């Protein structure tokens, strides 16, 4: 009797076992977010090594081989360790609360899909301490550099990618199952918050492409260990096949990292504009169109491999088309702000910076889509600037916006607004000083992934490095803000932000360990 009673009221378990065995979506969300934060600092450290070496022409700090290991590990850790787990963490925390569900649909799998990640990254990072060194073939690991010519540690890399992929697929299945089955009565699909919508679409993308990534690394494994020649021209294989398979995963992966960001920004901008999101329906359809188009544009990463002209044209046109739904989204955000009643708390600052800087990344994306022009941009710092603009002040800023937005709901305390604004402004200045000059470097002809450069690239490189150090150091402020906010501060109300809408604001702050064990009142559910 007492056991049955406890089942309804138990809080978290004590000590380490709380975190090891938890099936609670909030605990697992917290684990994901802390893990992602740790990986953000690890990947950031690698980036600092890169920027320090590139501060001046000549080789100063590291060997070229170690430099290649740094670029590779930076990319892998940031993509698979920082950005993706951060969004899964936000999904875990917020999706059940946003749709009025008591927890995720598959809580035990949820635990497992998180706990695989630390092992995958421990395995990947351990290669740094091995004789053969870490993977040094770039995060895109083009064969045959990553097969016939790879260091022996490539096997660790392959296994780590398999584990990360399995984790992502399980996370995606969980999100789809939760969103489709566990919505509270009255929460129809077209009443779901956009963050839930964009994550649902993202989850389908993950299930579509993560197995392809698993496939391509398995083919590599066979080439390296079992004598096959999928990618080995000398054995009748095809190195270009690798790129097709990789980018069939890799391009949707880009949208996997940006669609949830769209959801975050579509939540925050209306809240601080005190006005409903403009064009909710078109936002949903635009997200779905972007996801569909993202599956048929992969070879725009391969305009210089020597495709037939018909292929070049198809992938150029398809890629250009993506700017139509993306444009709709940006116009909708601007229209939401127009004639609103705006205030500029930190989440809003990050969200506005997201829209502006992501759009700049979108413009350079459109330029890169133009095949003949891409012959000049391809594999230069222009590309580096482009994808960092969409990923850092894009995806990463949206994650920071989300953390500041929901942190009072998670901890029950308001964060230090002054420190958070300092974090924003230093990050904003840092990120632009870091990445804007890289456009110029690329246009002037500096290839990416080089440890040393010709003298005409010297000035913009040191400027970029200064921006990098500033941006890197500023992130420590966020760590301070988060820790301070967990420890205490001004008590947060349930509503937290006066303009915020959604079910998560109907529960007290901090959110109780179990929320919506009974469904919320359907009258509380409004169309966003």
């Amino acid at each position, binding site marked *: 009797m007492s056991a049955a009673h406890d089942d309804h009221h138990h809080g978290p378990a004590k000590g380490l076992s709380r975190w090891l065995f938890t099936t609670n979506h909030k605990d697992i969300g917290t684990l994901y977010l802390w893990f992602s934060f740790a990986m953000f600092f690890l990947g950031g450290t690698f980036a600092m090594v890169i920027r320090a070496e590139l501060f001046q022409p000549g080789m100063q700090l590291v060997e070229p081989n170690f430099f290649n290991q740094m670029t590779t590990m930076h990319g892998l850790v940031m993509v698979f360790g920082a950005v993706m787990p951060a969004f899964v963490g936000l999904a875990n925390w917020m999706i059940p609360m946003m749709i009025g569900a008591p927890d995720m649909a598959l809580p035990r799998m949820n635990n497992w899909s998180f706990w695989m990640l630390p092992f995958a990254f421990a395995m990947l990072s351990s290669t740094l301490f091995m004789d053969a060194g870490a993977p040094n073939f770039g995060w895109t690991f083009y064969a045959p550099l990553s097969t016939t010519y790879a260091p022996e540690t490539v096997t660790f890399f392959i296994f780590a990618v398999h584990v990360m992929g399995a984790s992502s697929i399980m996370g995606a299945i969980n999100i789809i199952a939760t969103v489709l089955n566990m919505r509270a009565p009255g929460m129809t699909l077209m009443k779901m918050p956009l963050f839930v919508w964009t994550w649902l679409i993202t989850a389908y993308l993950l299930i579509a492409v993560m197995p392809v990534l698993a496939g391509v690394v398995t083919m590599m494994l066979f080439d390296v260990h079992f004598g096959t020649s999928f990618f080995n021209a000398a054995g009748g*294989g095809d190195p270009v096949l690798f790129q097709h398979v990789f980018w069939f995963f890799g391009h949707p992966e880009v949208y996997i990292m940006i669609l949830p960001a769209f959801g975050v920004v579509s939540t925050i901008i209306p809240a601080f504009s005190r006005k409903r999101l403009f064009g909710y329906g078109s936002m949903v359809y635009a997200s779905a169109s972007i996801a569909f188009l993202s599956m048929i544009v992969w070879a725009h990463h391969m305009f210089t491999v020597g495709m037939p002209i018909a292929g070049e044209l198809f992938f150029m046109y398809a890629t250009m088309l993506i700017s139509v739904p993306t444009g709709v989204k940006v116009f909708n955000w601007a229209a939401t702000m127009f*004639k609103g009643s705006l205030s500029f708390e930190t989440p809003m600052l990050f969200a506005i910076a997201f829209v502006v800087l992501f759009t700049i990344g979108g413009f350079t994306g459109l330029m890169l889509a133009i095949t003949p022009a891409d012959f000049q941009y391809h594999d230069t710092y222009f590309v580096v600037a482009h994808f960092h603009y969409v990923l850092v002040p894009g995806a990463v800023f949206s994650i920071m916006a989300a953390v500041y937005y929901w942190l009072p709901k998670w901890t029950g305390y308001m964060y230090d607004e002054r420190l958070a604004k300092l974090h924003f402004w230093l990050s904003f200045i840092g990120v632009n000083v870091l990445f804007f000059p890289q456009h110029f470097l690329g246009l*002037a002809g500096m290839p990416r992934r080089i440890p040393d450069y010709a003298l005409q690239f010297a000035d913009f490189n040191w400027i970029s490095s200064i921006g990098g150090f500033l941006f890197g150091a500023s992130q420590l402020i966020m760590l301070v803000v988060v820790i301070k906010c967990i420890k205490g501060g001004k008590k947060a109300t349930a509503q937290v932000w006066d303009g915020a809408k959604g079910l998560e604001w109907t529960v007290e702050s901090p959110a109780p360990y179990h929320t919506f064990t009974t469904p919320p009142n359907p009258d509380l559910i409004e169309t966003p």
Partner: protein
Amino acid sequence: MLPKAKLWLALTVAALSLLSTNLQAAWELNMPRGVTQTSREIYDLHMQIIWWCVAIGVVVFGVMLWSTIKYRKSKGAVPANFHESTKVEIIWTIIPFVILILMAVPATQVLTEAYDASESDLDIQITGYQWRWEYRYLRENADEEEVSFFSNLATSREEINNQLPKQENYLLEVDNALVIPVNKKVRFLITSNDVIHAWWVPDFAVKKDAIPGFINEAWTVVEEPGIYRGQCAELCGIDHGFMPVVVHALPQDEYDAWYAGRQEQARAAREQSNNVVTMSDSLAMGEEIYNRTCIACHQAGGAGLAPAFPALAGSSVVNGDLTANIQLVMNGVPGTAMASYARMLSPVELAAIVTYIRNSFGNSTGDLVQPSEVNALLEAQ
């Protein structure tokens, strides 16, 4: 002059000269217009799209900036109620679509022209190696002397490691540049011997991947004589940053003279491989080849870089059977970074490098390899 004043004067002159060299090219913001019709068309396309983006950016960011100034809660702004408009959504779907069509039309035209490599005047095969380029001029008929050579980074390791001041063309200079005639359609047939590289000269707007097992086509018609520099654009391993492309575009008559001279050199090299060489010449030549070709992996002093790149100092191969050693350098070690040098180096050079490694880094076999021995092994294969 006082010593102190002298010092200040020297420093000022040094700073000024540094500044003026910096000002020449260091603050380059944009893509080069280049020296070919294709490169100019691509530049125009690039500028056209930038201006479209600027225009769209001004409108969108303008609305946002206006909103952040005009509709502040702190100024008592009251939010409006509108939240959808099918008409507006349709307008801002159709306008970008029309702009895209305006961009796609010229882009398609430029691409179609850039893809037409037919009717070339001269064909050159470009092969990427870790980490150098090989240029082979395809002959009209088979009894002509063939011109082919390797193009290696000419910047010294001392400059890279900051032991010597860096020259003007730091990392963008090679021992043997590709030479082409101006105003002729030159077709490049691009492939690779090992991993994927990419051959790129920004002034020509030619960038094409060099892929093992594939032959890619690209072409150019250079209109102005000059020296044009580029780099490998695809990550190809340790020395990816150290394999520049340098092209000399010469007027036809100078090109013809250069080509004839190269043919003469090739003939002479073939004959030279029967000469007898001395120890001191071999060691000097071997050291030069080692610093250019081998040092990236086997490192200074033959120390190697464990475990992928074995040390040569005290190596059992280098101190073991001479014929096996020569054959290893000739054929490489399949499945490792050790490439086959049978084509990359001439018989004289192969003999010199083997002599050098067998008598350096503490190795002292005393072996002097003659080019004729290498020739015999090459012919036996």
